[in-house]
């Protein structure tokens, strides 16, 4: 098993708020190798035999437990695709913290593509937090292309928090969800791009069951010469309700393309989308400056609040 060094420790802190080994189940991955694992009576983790990745099985009725599965890359030139499957039994209530941190000081690209598949049992409640972070001043790019697939059984709910604020050069995120009767999905995405970074975020959420609902809210900021594309599609196949909101601030020469879309295949599907892109309003800056902040401080407060 790999030993965790200082850079990796810092990356673990950034992506999973880990200052020490977490309580509960965990699987730590560093530079493509296992760096720590703990299972509990209710949460089992097994290494896949056919490809890279892990199978996580959470027993029915598991409540108030947590699972941390962060990944860090601190060597330049690593490219990996990892498949993690989550089999969550009925009536669970579990927090899952994932996330990936890349520190690339070298000249070769570092890339982690995490493919996460969630099978959520009846009436289970999952909170999923995924943070992405990049650092290092090498010319090699830091690339993250996560795929998240969620299959939700009757009455289950999932709250996803996706955060990518700093240092990732290129990202293409795909989130696919299928919801059964009365299942509920909440997504909160926060994204900030700098320099010449590119970020694509694509959602396809299918509301198949009666009473299912999805609420996808993305707040993003594109600075410098960065580019973002936000493509959120909700498909209503039953009497369901869906809402997407893409709210963005552009600064400098940033560019954002927001493509919210709705497809209703049932007359009782209630679907709404909202999208707004604009710069920081001048009167917001003025107000904070009348409270004694400099223009730059005012901008920071507005950005931090927006991405909170």
């Amino acid at each position, binding site marked *: 098993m790999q030993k965790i060094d200082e850079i990796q420790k810092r990356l673990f802190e950034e992506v999973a708020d880990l200052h020490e080994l977490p309580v509960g189940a965990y699987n730590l991955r560093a530079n493509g190798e296992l760096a720590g694992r703990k299972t509990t009576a209710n949460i089992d983790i097994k290494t896949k035999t056919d490809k890279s990745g892990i199978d996580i099985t959470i027993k029915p009725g598991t409540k108030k437990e947590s699972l941390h599965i962060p990944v860090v890359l601190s060597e330049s030139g690593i490219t990996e695709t990892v498949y993690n499957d989550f089999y969550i039994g009925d009536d669970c209530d579990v927090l899952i913290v994932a996330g990936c941190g890349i520190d690339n000081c070298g000249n070769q690209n570092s890339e982690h593509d995490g493919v996460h598949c969630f099978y959520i049992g009846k009436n289970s409640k999952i909170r999923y937090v995924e943070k992405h972070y990049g650092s290092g001043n090498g010319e090699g790019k830091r690339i993250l292309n996560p795929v998240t697939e969620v299959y939700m059984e009757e009455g289950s709910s999932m709250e996803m928090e996706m955060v990518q604020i700093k240092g990732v050069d290129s990202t293409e995120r795909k989130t696919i969800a299928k919801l059964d009767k009365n299942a509920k999905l909440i997504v909160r995405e926060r994204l900030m791009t700098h320099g010449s970074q590119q970020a694509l975020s694509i959602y396809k959420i299918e509301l198949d069951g009666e009473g299912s609902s999805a609420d996808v809210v993305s*707040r993003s900021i594109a600075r410098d010469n960065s580019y973002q594309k936000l493509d959120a599609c909700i498909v209503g196949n039953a009497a369901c309700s869906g809402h997407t909101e893409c*709210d963005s601030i552009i600064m400098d020469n940033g560019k954002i393309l927001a493509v919210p879309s709705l497809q209703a295949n049932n007359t009782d599907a209630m679907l709404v989308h909202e999208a707004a892109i604009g710069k920081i*309003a001048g*009167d*917001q800056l*003025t*107000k*904070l*400056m*009348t*409270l*004694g*902040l*400099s*223009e730059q401080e005012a901008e920071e*407060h*507005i950005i*931090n*609040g*927006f*991405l*909170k």
Partner: protein
Amino acid sequence: MLELKNISFNAGDKADIIKNVSLNIDENKFTVITGPNGGGKSTLARIIAGIIKPTDGKIYFCGNDITDMAITERARLGIGFAFQQPVRFKGLSVMDLLKIAAGKELNMDEACKYLSEVGLCAKDYINREINASLSGGELKRIEIATVIARDVKLAIFDEPEAGIDIWSFKNLINIFEKMRRERSDRTIIVISHQERILNIADDIIVIADGQVKKKGIRETIMPDIIGTPSAVGPCHKMV
């Protein structure tokens, strides 16, 4: 404490909105600037706060020439400004804004004090985002609370009573009186043509057509303006 010397302002090629205005506002005075709509009252208030740069003239605050100072510098010298139409912020909470205004961390009790002064219950509002979910009246009260939290030497309120829904004038007047009691060197300027606010003024300035038409103590000016657009009675809902 505040002196405007030959202040003029025009927006581009149009006629002057403020025409060669000279004014002295004394320390520890409650001054109400009134006058008909479009006469230049709000523009003048914005010039004092530094939001608008005058095209001509000088501004002195406590003896310092602040004409070329930016909004931030003036704020740090102790000038506070409550907007006529408060700004909304997605993501910033009422607590965030009060902390920025106070310039320090605030505990629940301190934040509660500021909000209760403007008739809001801190428990209901402190974590609310300053977004479209707040009504115009709620926003306006929060705006006033931010000026209270700043503990300024000169507080400027641009039509503070506009949009204050069911909340009464009496509370607003209590706020002004309390602000004066708290600091003996504090000066308050209110832009308003509401008779009930004019009634508590020490001095009244009437601005129309970009010029000072009248200036003096309340007792002298009030009889001249009562019943005109410069001194409007309260709406029956506000009584």
